[in-house]
């Protein structure tokens, strides 16, 4: 394979100059024509702040952390649920296929915003009171509460956090179900038959022959779904989960720094998802070399 050397041509220079000019024009229009006073130094302290001699996370940084926690938990739990349902989708039992099929069709054909409200106002609330989770958390020891705060959210925000998490899990699991189903169905029929010929039961066929191969094909798509989850997590801001978007909206309504805060939020989301997508690309290429080597 020949590698093309990257050359800097006059066209590149022209493009860079044009892009810079467009950026400057935009900033100028906002600053001069709209009479908008940029207050970037003020915005920075919502990220990190000197507090009594030590650096502490500002409210945007806290929201960022909540977004990360929410996305990681949602992906992990949705993978678990999605794997079970994905297996049900390819099961021999009609009942299993119907249950998983109706779930996937129902969730994928609803707007996520509607799903958020349904879970928050109806399902989440009923189940939370039924289980008595709130009382349980409040009577827990300080050590347990500290662990819960580290893993999820402060006790005060926990029930809201769980409602948001449940929505995201329900929503993402439907897509992961389809990823798992597609992964399993992409394995050639011959593999099933060969495993059957060896005298393996269906469970053993899945466990020893099909799933290890399917997993390799599923993994990159699954990692991609994590990125989707991060983006979808912004939607739970409507039920007041203090994640990045919600924290930003709160700040804007208190400080009126609309442009600065939206730009900061955009940058934070981009940094987060772009890091993950680079990771996913690495994962994909390493898997490809592995499978072609083996």
């Amino acid at each position, binding site marked *: 394979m020949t590698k093309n050397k990257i050359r800097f041509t006059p066209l590149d220079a022209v493009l860079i100059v044009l892009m810079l000019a467009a950026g400057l024009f935009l900033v100028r229009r906002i600053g001069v024509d*709209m*009479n*908008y006073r940029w*207050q970037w130094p*003020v915005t920075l*302290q*919502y990220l990190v*702040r000197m*507090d009594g001699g030590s650096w*502490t996370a*500002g*409210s945007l940084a*806290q929201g960022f952390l909540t977004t990360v926690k929410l996305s990681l938990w949602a992906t992990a739990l949705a993978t678990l649920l999605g794997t079970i349902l994905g297996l049900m989708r390819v099961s021999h*039992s009609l*009942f299993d296929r119907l249950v998983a099929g109706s779930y996937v069709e129902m969730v994928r054909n609803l707007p996520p915003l509607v799903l958020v409200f349904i879970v928050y*106002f109806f399902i989440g*609330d*009923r189940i939370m*009171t*039924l289980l008595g989770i709130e*009382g349980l958390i*409040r009577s827990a020891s300080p050590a347990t509460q500290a662990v819960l705060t580290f893993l999820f959210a402060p006790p*005060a*925000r926990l029930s*809201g956090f769980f409602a948001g998490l449940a929505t995201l899990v329900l929503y993402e699991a439907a897509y992961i179900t389809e990823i798992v189903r597609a992964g399993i169905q992409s394995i050639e029929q011959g593999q099933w038959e060969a495993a059957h010929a060896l005298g393996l039961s269906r469970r053993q066929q899945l466990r020893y022959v099909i799933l290890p191969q399917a997993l390799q094909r599923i993994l990159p798509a699954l990692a991609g779904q994590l990125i989707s989850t991060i983006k979808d997590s912004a939607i739970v801001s*409507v039920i*007041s989960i*203090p994640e990045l978007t*919600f924290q930003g*909206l*709160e*700040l*804007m*309504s*208190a*400080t*009126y720094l*609309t442009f600065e805060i939206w730009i900061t939020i955009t940058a934070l989301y981009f940094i987060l998802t772009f890091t993950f997508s680079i990771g996913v690309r690495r994962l994909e290429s390493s898997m490809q070399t592995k499978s072609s080597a083996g």
Partner: protein
Amino acid sequence: MKRNHLWIAITVITVFALFAARETIAQTAPAAGEGMLEQVMKRGVLRVGMSTFVPWAMQDKAGNFVGFEIDVANRLAQEMGVKAEFIPTKWSGIIPALLTGKFDIIIGGMGIRPERNLKVNFSIPYDHTGMSIVAHKKLAAGFRKLGDFNNANVSIAVRTGTTAAAAAKQWMPKAKLRLFDDESQAIQELLLGRVHAVIASAPLPAFQAIANPGKLFLPLKEDFTREPIGFAIRKGDFDSLNFLDNWIRVVEAEGWLKERKHHWFETKEWERLLK
């Protein structure tokens, strides 16, 4: 195998039906259980529903809640011997959130309105507010009275679900109403010159006119409505309501409410907390 599944399905449905029935019974008889007051004492925490309204309630740099309503809620909780916990909620969904038990009480500058009162119980007023207008200098040049805005060519921005929206519909029914999720978006729209005016509770319009002297002005010298502000709690809980009413009478007699109101509404000392 098939029969097995049928039984599982029947069991699951029965269990759900039983839970649902239990829940409905529990819902229809709230008075038989504990009122808000007992629940709060037992929990040791007063959960307060609020929404960001400068300077009623907002987050400071450190992410702590500050503002007039926050002071009121903190003192109320302190006198109940519990801690106040603030649950920021979108204003348009704050009453459903109270009804479904996301928090115990709304302390967020909620205006007492008959249509709200059909769904929740209000305490006696602990504060009064009025609606005020801030207008765009160029677009609304020469506008001096309320009637000037009652025109089909005028558009007005307000926050969704607030009494400002109700006031705009009542006083300027001909004007086009544009609804936003919070005041900062409405003000932004005004600064961009896409609406003629923003209606909001005083003193927000005045503060905005001071902050943007080149673009905005106050067409009316005084507030054009006067609205009582009360605490909102779920219906059927009169013991708690009695406690709240009398708490308000006590702090009002002390002059404490007036002093706090002066601090948040007439001074701007608190501004350094935000920026």
